[in-house]
């Protein structure tokens, strides 16, 4: 056994790259539709929040991510926006990450078009401003002043929907879809804990573990985690999208990595006995 493992450990890592490549590419050609997806409590909480708000509630969606996290957060954004538009809430979208501006605009206008939402009446896209936490602080005082114009250069004050929205605290819900900082933690520290509005959001897998404490402390309600969370949300709103389609590939990748961890450790323990240390 031992020489085999030794050989295994010494193999070129590009073989592993190849295995992973196959595991991820295979399901994109042959749909497996692995069953078993179930909404986790945190995703359910976000869904319930949006579902139970009275029609026409004012919701701010902040796109705090860039194309690097698109596969994880764009499906979340799409699912949440679809749900918001379906419930006829008033959506104000914006972003704190500069390289995400155009991508966010695409997502917002696409989902709005699906729901026949009218620009300026049902939704608004304000775009981006530099300054991270200062933007939140500035919006808390006066959104019209912080964003004098929307992303396309229209006067914010001239948009009918924005007439009734001047301050952050007037929003019934703020959703931050964040790939890091500035993101959910910034919104909580400089926004909701100080100016008191309801906060929820979604984040990338990398950040899920760090955000758990805010959910536990009630500083935010629910949390959509990664592509899987997006798939769960898609399931809840009964409209499958990119995330649901991706779960197969991710699943195979996961099993492969678990197998690699186990195999690697077995090899490590088998070979360690004979020649002290790897």
């Amino acid at each position, binding site marked *: 056994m031992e020489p085999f493992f030794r050989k295994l450990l010494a193999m070129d890592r590009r073989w592993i790259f190849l295995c992973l490549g196959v595991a991820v590419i295979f399901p994109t050609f042959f749909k497996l539709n692995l069953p078993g997806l179930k909404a986790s409590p945190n995703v359910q909480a976000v869904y319930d929040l949006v579902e139970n708000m009275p029609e026409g509630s004012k919701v701010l969606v902040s796109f705090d991510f860039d194309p690097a996290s698109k596969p994880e957060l764009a499906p979340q954004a799409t699912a949440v926006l679809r749900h918001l538009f379906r419930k006829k809430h008033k959506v104000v979208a914006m972003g704190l990450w500069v390289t995400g501006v155009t991508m966010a605009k695409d997502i917002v206008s696409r989902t709005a078009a699906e729901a026949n939402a009218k620009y300026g009446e049902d939704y608004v896209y304000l775009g981006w401003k530099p300054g991270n936490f200062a933007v939140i602080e500035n919006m808390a005082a006066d959104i*019209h002043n912080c964003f004098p114009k929307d992303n396309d250069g229209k006067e914010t004050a001239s948009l009918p929907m924005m007439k009734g929205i001047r301050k952050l605290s007037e929003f019934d819900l703020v959703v931050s879809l964040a790939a890091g900082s500035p993101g959910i933690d910034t919104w909580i520290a400089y926004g909701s*804990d100080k100016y*008191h509005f309801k906060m929820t959001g979604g984040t990338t897998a*990398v*950040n899920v573990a*760090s955000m758990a404490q805010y959910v536990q402390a009630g500083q935010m309600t629910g949390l959509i985690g990664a592509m899987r969370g997006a798939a769960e949300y898609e399931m809840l709103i009964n409209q499958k999208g990119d995330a649901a389609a991706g779960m197969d590939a991710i699943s195979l990748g996961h099993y492969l990595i678990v197998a690699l961890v186990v195999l690697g450790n077995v090899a490590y323990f088998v070979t360690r006995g004979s020649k002290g*240390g*790897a």
Partner: protein
Amino acid sequence: MLRVLWLTALAAGIAAAQETPSKAALPPVEGVAFEDVPADNGAAIQATWKKMPNDAEVTYRIMVATSENGPWFLAAETPGTENFSQDDGYPFWMGPPKNRELHYLAVDGYQAGEERVTLMPPEDPKTKTRKPTPDYWFKLVAESPAGSWESPATKLKPEWNLFNWARLNVFLYMLAFAGIILAFIQIARGRQLFIRRIAGLDAVDEAVGRATEMGKPIFYLTGRNGITDVSTVAATLILGEIAKKVATYDTTIKVPHTDPIVMAVCQEITRESYIAAGRPDSFKPDSNFFVTDDQFGYTAAVDGMMVREKPAACFYMGYYYAESLLLAETGASTGAIQVAGTDADHQLPFFVTACDYTLIGEELYAAGAYLSKEPVLVGTLRGQDIGKAVILAALLVLTAVATIGQWVTVGGKKPYKWSEIWVFDFLKGS
């Protein structure tokens, strides 16, 4: 914070406002008081009155007028069974006593026809100014199927306040913590403060020893952040210590850099270490060298060096991004002893599994302070320790109080979550 009740069913309200007339009188409501809301910008007032025996049938309305004789407008409305002072949202040191014996309602505007008027005149968006707040008259109207009652009108103007007393606790914590930090930095300048030995530093000795035995180089990385980052500072301090050992044992150290300023600093530190070890002649300035400032370019280059030179030990101190995985993996595959130290918590899992020892988060700073004995670092560390001790103590006491509060009864009945009201207000972020 304010639990202001907006009137949505305004039709009913206006009707009520116009025909207050004589029904059979209800018994007078006791303890009616109108006051300015404490700690606000002058936007609201609050009304309190006692719980009455017939509250179940009564609807209370707060009426407002800009002159003593009306016209009266409806400002807020509540059924008699709701809105008590325990829910006023203030910590216990503010506002009326918290219980279910006293009704509480805050008012910051009223409904005049279709229009909602705020007590504080709105800001003119052009001139950015407001008209002065006028005087208002307030009265409480109690109404039930059996009859109605109204309080005499009270003249009151909402005033602004200079300090937000609801945030008093956070203010005190801030002052206290500032005091502690500044005091300990001062103390540390005067005398040595104890810092415990950081376990990971023992691994450093072992690694250097091994490198000497094997006659192979040591790789030391200072992370990808600039010199202003605390973790980079700690990394340079630890480098100084390791360089001393390296100089003593006469092994080689290689420090590839991604930031020219950090490189310059590290060069100086390494030189000083060699001098301190008494071997200035064996110092090689090119042991610190610049690779590239590009993330993956740097990583690929360092990985290549590791594979070629098969170092005896690799140190990864400072802040790392996604490259941590690649570096630690390559290092592990060359069989080197690896010691990491970072406060980048996303990268810690990779270091912990791929390295022999990892300094986790603050341990890195502590290691830097421990080795350098720099008063500001040591004093800050001690100040933070005191802060942590206070948090620990608070957690212990408050949890005990909360747990005991589950059983204790006061005055023969179970008080309304007394532990939470009294003690936990200190932990309220407002």
